């Protein structure tokens, strides 16, 4: 399964979620192929995206959040699984792009990348819903699988999607600082909430 297909399926399945995107290929796939959702690109430091998403979800329980996480970012901070299980926000769901390697860094394998079962680790950390979408799953099945994730009982819920190794070279130094990206996110979120209010 290609990252672009996953990002596109998420965009279709979760148009009402605020997105926190980790650095690396997961975030770039969402930027290039995702939806118009208000999105905060977590950027560096690596391993901070789960905490940022948890803090955001706790601060705004009236919004639904979706963390788009790279497997390398997640394994840098596996303890975040325990913090999220403990805090158990009802409004945070997680999709992990899992290819078992540091794609941006040059394709080096993660430690135990070919052995570890991230969904099992999450379940062992207390997540009531954590499932793996294996690599040869048809893209056509993604809407249903994402629907199960988004419709899971309130509490931590994760879908680990095995994606194909694909080249992901650096796209340059980036166009925005973290502060500028934050301002863009705040503006997009304010406009999005305003438009939802107008619809209501």
């Amino acid at each position, binding site marked *: 399964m290609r990252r672009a297909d996953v990002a596109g399926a998420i965009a279709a399945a979760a148009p009402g979620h605020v997105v926190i995107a980790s650095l690396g290929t997961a975030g770039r796939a969402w930027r290039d192929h995702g939806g118009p959702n208000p999105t905060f690109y977590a950027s560096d430091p690596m391993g901070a995206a789960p905490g940022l998403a*948890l803090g955001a979800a*706790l601060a*705004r329980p009236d919004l639904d959040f979706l963390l788009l996480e790279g497997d390398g970012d997640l394994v840098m901070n596996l303890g975040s699984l325990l913090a999220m299980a403990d805090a158990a926000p009802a409004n945070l769901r997680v999709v992990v792009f899992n290819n078992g390697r540091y794609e941006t860094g040059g394709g080096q394998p993660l430690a135990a990348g070919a052995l570890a079962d991230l969904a099992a680790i999450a379940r062992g950390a207390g997540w009531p819903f954590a499932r793996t979408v294996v690599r040869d799953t048809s893209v056509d099945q993604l809407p249903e699988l994402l629907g199960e994730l988004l419709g899971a009982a309130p509490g931590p819920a994760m879908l680990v999607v095995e994606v194909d190794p694909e080249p992901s070279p650096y796209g340059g130094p980036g166009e925005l600082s973290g502060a500028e990206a934050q301002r863009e996110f705040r503006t997009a979120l304010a406009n999005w909430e305003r438009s939802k209010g107008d619809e209501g």
Partner: protein
Amino acid sequence: MTDVETATTRSAAIVDRLKAGGVGLAAYLPDSWLSPLIGEVVADPSILDVRVTREDDAVAIAGGAALMGLRSAVLCQNAGVLLSANVLAAFAHHHELPLVVVAAARGGAEDGFYYQMYKGQVTAGVAAAAGLTVHHVDGPADDWLFEKASEQAWLLRRPVLLLCSRRALVGETA
């Protein structure tokens, strides 16, 4: 007043100040000097309390709350400041996310443990090098900092560190 009563009084005063500064979320990892304060935070329904396994995760959580407009604090030992240098520097220079770190300043002259000493030697310097504003809180006379540090962090758009003595946190000396 017993030691426990003194510590409880100190913790209540600190929590009142943090709340007056707008803090609505606190992520924490324990230190014995922080134990009464953590207990007071957990007991206060107006502050969301979040347990973590590493202090840099606490900083990230506090940053996420700040991203959504909620003032936040991290409660940890100064070892956690050292561990979190990367994310703190990123929030100071890259993301400009404000938060307050209330850290037990282990390793000072009042501390009686050899393995704490290095933390007292290096934490303030590391935090300043990471771009944080650093205040030393030495006792009740400095309590205003627990309130004003949040305001300063939001005005500066970066983390502010309060290095707190044992007397400041539990109201007693070694």
